[in-house]
């Protein structure tokens, strides 16, 4: 029977669900990791400057639109477990699972089961009694499950269309999250608050930023000085670091060309044209330029392009 998956024959709805499941999974992983490092950083800062430490938690709450919390532990617990907070780790996992559920026949059983187990594990946790240590251990556990998911994806899925839509979702989300995180950390009020007390916290601040992107070790191998410029160079302009924005755009471009079966030298869709331009621009940019224009402006401009890119992909494939 001719039911075997041929190229260019995936249901548009399935393609869209794969894309979004992948984005939410990437977002859940990122959020869990950032929370883990935020908490650790906040505790570290508390010994130096109480106002700066407080700012770390307050900013995290603000980012998630969370108004009331009584302690850093409670804040963390809400950001991990709150099913009604759309940006909580649990909500992201639920969205990823819900998307995967609608296309269970298209992802490998192993992947589905892993995300399903994760979802039940989090919904069954008793978050009212969770203490800092428990939440930290949950976050580490999550970290491992996500690594497991990456392994399963790479070792159980053939590199057909389904894989490419997952790849697109993952790297679009990663570029988006990295750009936003750097913007947030480069202009963090904690830096100013510490300065008011005569403290320089740039080193721990920037190293925490790198940790949030699992990039501290890789960065330290290539750079000796922790500066916003060097971090921007590494996390935005590196074609080699898997966490970098340029690397992500490279992957997006490769996935798009794999879907359209066209060489990367030419474009056949508007999405390919746009991503080709972004890759070209980033390849020939320098970190000094990025910072000179103002990182915030650069980041905003790239995020705008990412949104446009998502819209073009939806138009081409999900219609």
């Amino acid at each position: 029977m001719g039911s075997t998956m041929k190229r260019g024959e995936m249901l548009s709805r399935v393609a869209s669900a794969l894309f979004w499941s992948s984005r939410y999974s990437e977002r859940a992983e990122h959020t869990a990791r950032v929370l883990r490092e935020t908490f650790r950083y906040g505790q570290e800062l508390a010994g130096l400057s109480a106002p700066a430490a407080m700012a770390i938690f307050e900013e995290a709450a603000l980012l998630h639109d969370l108004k009331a919390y009584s302690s850093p532990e409670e804040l963390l617990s809400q950001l991990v477990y709150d099913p009604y907070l759309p940006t909580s780790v649990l909500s992201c996992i639920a969205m990823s699972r819900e998307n995967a559920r609608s296309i269970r026949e298209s992802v490998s059983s192993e992947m589905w089961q892993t995300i399903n187990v994760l979802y039940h594990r989090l919904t069954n946790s008793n978050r009212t009694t969770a203490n800092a240590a428990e939440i930290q251990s949950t976050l580490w556990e999550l970290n491992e499950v996500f690594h497991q998911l990456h392994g399963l994806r790479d070792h159980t899925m053939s590199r057909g269309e389904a894989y490419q839509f997952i790849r697109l979702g993952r790297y679009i989300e990663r570029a988006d999250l990295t750009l936003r995180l750097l913007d947030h950390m480069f202009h963090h009020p904690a830096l100013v608050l510490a300065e008011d007390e005569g403290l320089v916290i740039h080193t721990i601040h920037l190293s925490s930023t790198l940790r949030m992107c699992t990039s501290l070790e890789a960065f330290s191998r290539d750079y000796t000085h922790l500066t916003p410029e060097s971090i921007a160079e590494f996390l935005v302009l590196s074609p080699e670091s898997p966490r970098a924005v340029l690397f992500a755009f490279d992957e997006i471009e490769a996935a798009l060309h794999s879907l359209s079966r066209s060489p990367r030298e030419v474009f056949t869709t508007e999405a390919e044209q746009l991503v080709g331009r972004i890759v070209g621009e980033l390849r020939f940019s320098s970190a000094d330029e990025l910072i000179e224009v103002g990182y915030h402006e650069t980041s905003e401009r790239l995020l705008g392009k990412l949104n446009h890119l998502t819209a073009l992909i939806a138009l081409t494939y999900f219609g």
Partner: protein
Amino acid sequence: MSLFYNYSKLSANDEALSDGGEVHALYEGIATSLEKLSPKELETKKKAADLFFLNRGTTFTVYNEDQGIDRVFPFDPIPRIISGTEWEKIEFGLRQRIFALNLFLKDIYHDQRILRDGVIPVDLILGAKHFRREWVGVEVPHDIYVHICGTDLIRDENGDMVVLEDNLRSPSGVSYVLENREAMKSMFPEFFEGYDIRPVQEYSYLLREVLEFIAPPSADDPVAVLLSPGVYNSAYFEHTFLAKQMGIRVVEGRDLVVDDDILYMKTTGGLRKVDVVYRRIDDDFLDPLIFRPDSVLGVPGIVNAYRRGNVALANSIGTGVADDKAVYAYVPKIIRYYLGEEPLLQNVPTIIASDPGGVTAIQDQIENLVVKRVDEAGGYGMLIGPHSTRSEQEEFKARVAAEPRCYIAQRMVDFSTHPSFIDGSLQPRRVDLRPYILFGSEVKVLPGGLTRVALREGSMVVNSSQGGGSKDTWVLR
């Protein structure tokens, strides 16, 4: 000490006990395996089985205040065992039944001989809720209407397997047959020792063959899909499960489009022709142009594409008329009429309210009868006379009098029980059996089926919507 030590009969027959009340020879192996397990160990293993289902997502979803909750279909680890000899009888009976029902459907959608010969009252058929006038005179591939059938059987007081109802539209539950076996093999491998059990795994291959068989001859490499109402349907797990096993895609109405009487699915590479649809949505929702205009689950134009022979549907349209509970009462006559044979599987004797004297017959002895609506399923819209209050009985008397065409009544069968593991001990619980029958180039009956258990003490209702569970079913060689 085996858990069977304290187990005793509740109803006329228990599947695991012989007439004298000792463990039946078929169940001696299980009894021996249970001797090696303490109730506590069995409880732990049962919990592990529940987790097995939850993790695999073998669940149905209950929606409550827009929060989806995944529920595991309760699983009882004590398997139901059917001997090879008994199974042979059941299988022959089921084959006979599906042949006859299929001839019946062909007849009432064409010449209606059975009505003209006065074997069945005309009104009963033409007035049936699921009779589709739109489908009269339409040819279907190979004259097969019912490709997938699930027939519910119970064992009566005499020890005979009798038919409770046929499910000829889109019977569900087969995924649990396959998953229950997987769970048993993973969690209770020691139970299998000494038993020669027929496998059930081939179901999805057989179903795939059926779909391939009914494809339009013009399609040399036919594309089949499973049409599902979507992720909010309680049987959604089963849809993805079967599709995955068959290697076909699950589609929803919004993924399909009909152009010039050809059915297409919307893919990332444009439109792609579809040749066979295993549909898991009812006629009513299938095509808003023909049936319910407010349906958003279906595909406008799909019925005409089918009529033109450009796509095949399994099951066909209008099959629900033959599983109407009033028509059910006529199945023995239907078998005699078309096949000239005596039915091998008996019905439960049924009073049709719309027959002459039917209403009075039901009203007079309602406290002893089970009264059912003819077009309802899932244990809804029924009264179990002996378990009902006087006012419930009065209410049903009035309902039957008001709408005789909508009601039938059956005597209450004291159907068989089966040991089930409940609260640390074995307790007798009522069971039914739903075997699955496939009709393609030939008729195949899956050896086994879904054994459903009424888990609540004393309950006679096995439906999952009414607190029922299920267990693995072993047909021996």
